[in-house]
């Protein structure tokens, strides 16, 4: 039986290429992208009973040996493409887990370079599936740090257990230092001059370039590690002479803790209640309300994970 011309345009040349033994990768990539884009020519034909495979164009029953071979080859190629896609998703999940253990944000270009490769046109689908796995299997939420730079981090969605995390990770002291700095920044109106930060630390016996048994080299920890990990932002204050720099909260701090939590920490340090600082307390309340609203809208979007 002859194929209808409009339905045969794309698939037939592809099938022929497969029978010529063309490069696998090419065929797979093509099949994969055809898989993703809903085809207007998609029709189900009862005569095709090769494992109920949907045809993207060649919908006329191909009962000739050549047609059957083409169909079988296409099915095989599609299966291979799906498996390849599955494996890429799995590799991306592992890559993200490994990178996250070092607490460094992961960029889209890194993901493409080390994992995704020539499937980069499928990046949105791959990363969405990886995010689903991370959420369902491991309890991590993949969050984009900022839209412009395509960097991502993992946030732990499981409820935190104070001493368990510290004992396991051994990051306790360093994160304690970070909390002190976040506290200072918040209480000073969401930014603190570099000089103020060092003054506070000096009162704790911590000097910038003197090796500390808990923090290592504090200057490196704060200026490099915390900034690189996006816990802190560091920028030049304009119109200052001599030039001064200031710290503010980085995007990871906003994700991993909150103004209310940090205010609570500061309050405990001073053995007072958070309400003791009415301005900061009001600001923290407003922040909590914002978060609650943002959380509600996320929950409204149902999870797409099949299980």
């Amino acid at each position: 039986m002859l194929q209808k011309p409009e339905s045969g345009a794309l698939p037939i040349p592809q099938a022929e290429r497969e029978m010529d033994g063309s490069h696998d990768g090419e065929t797979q990539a093509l099949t994969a992208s055809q898989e993703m884009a809903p085809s207007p020519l998609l029709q189900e034909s009862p005569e095709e009973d090769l494992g109920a495979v949907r045809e993207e164009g060649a919908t006329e029953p191909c009962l000739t040996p050549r047609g059957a071979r083409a169909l079988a080859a296409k099915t095989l190629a599609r299966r291979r493409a799906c498996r390849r896609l599955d494996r890429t998703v799995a590799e991306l999940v592992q890559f993200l887990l490994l990178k996250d253990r070092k607490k460094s944000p992961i960029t889209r270009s890194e993901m493409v370079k080390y994992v995704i490769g020539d499937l980069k046109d499928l990046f949105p689908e791959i990363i969405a599936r990886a995010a689903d796995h991370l959420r369902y299997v491991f309890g991590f939420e993949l969050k984009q740090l900022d839209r412009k730079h395509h960097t991502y981090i993992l946030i732990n969605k499981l409820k935190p257990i104070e001493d368990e995390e510290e004992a396991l990770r051994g990051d306790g002291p360093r994160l304690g230092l970070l909390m002190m700095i976040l506290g200072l920044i918040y209480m000073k109106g969401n930014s603190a001059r570099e000089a103020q930060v060092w003054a506070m630390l000096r009162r704790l016996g911590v000097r910038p370039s003197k090796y500390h048994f808990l923090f290592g080299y504090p200057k490196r920890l704060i200026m490099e590690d915390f900034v690189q990990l996006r816990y802190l932002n560091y920028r030049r204050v304009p119109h200052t002479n001599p030039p001064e720099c200031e710290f503010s909260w980085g995007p990871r701090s906003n994700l991993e803790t909150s103004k209310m939590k940090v205010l609570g920490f500061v309050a405990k340090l001073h053995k007072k209640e958070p309400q003791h600082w009415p301005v900061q307390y009001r600001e923290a309340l407003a922040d909590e309300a914002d978060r609650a609203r943002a959380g509600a809208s996320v929950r409204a979007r149902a999870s797409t994970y099949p299980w």
Partner: protein
Amino acid sequence: MQGSTRRMGVMTDVHRRFLQLLMTHGVLEERDVKRLQKHCYKVHDCNATVEKLEDFINNINSVLESLYIEIKKGVTEDDGRPIYALVNLATTSVSKMASDFAENELDLFRKALELIIDSDTGFASSTNILNLVDQLKGKKMRKKEAEHVLQKFVQNKWLIEKEGEFTLHGRAILEMEQYIRETYPDAVKVCNICRGLLIQGQSCETCGIRMHLPCVAKYFQSSTEPHCPHCNDYWPHEVPEVFDPEKERETGMSRPNKRSLRSRQH
């Protein structure tokens, strides 16, 4: 596609926390794994009965299958303790180490690995490893630095050190067995009993077959005069005891291991 009728397990926060903590540690002994499991139940589902560990792990593995990873159980080569690690099913060599170590450090590990596999005892001396420092790929490394790197490998449970000599940690064997077999097919040694990769073990002096120490322990458990299973010659080595977890608890030898549970994992 053919419908997959494999029944897939269900993940709850109990399982997720278990996975997260297992990943943090890299590798855990069975006793600590059981404690970890109980801890996860206590935190997330304190009223549920704690599932039998084997079923618990099989359940998680059925979910992990589509991610090409699994929780694998192995046994330490020196004293037969059961250990568990989350391993890659699709082997890409030293991939898990690749995120923690620089190029020259990874190459140092590869060199140590080769020496260990080629050796007769399964151990490579510190001196022999350090002598290869000039051949490393990547940034030039001094011997002093290499000593630190070797210690990092020990801390991260990729190598074990005994009296200045290094061998593979059970974790490395669990994670890299397939890679090692594929990369060094001629040099690799295999246990005559369990057919698994063998780094440390005992060997018959007549016919040369090798066995893991725990395999020797089990095989000769109730024989008064051990004979080589292959050539029947008298087995000349001391037969170790079969590992008994119950005995461990009584003698209170668990304390040193408790410390290792809390030690920081990179």
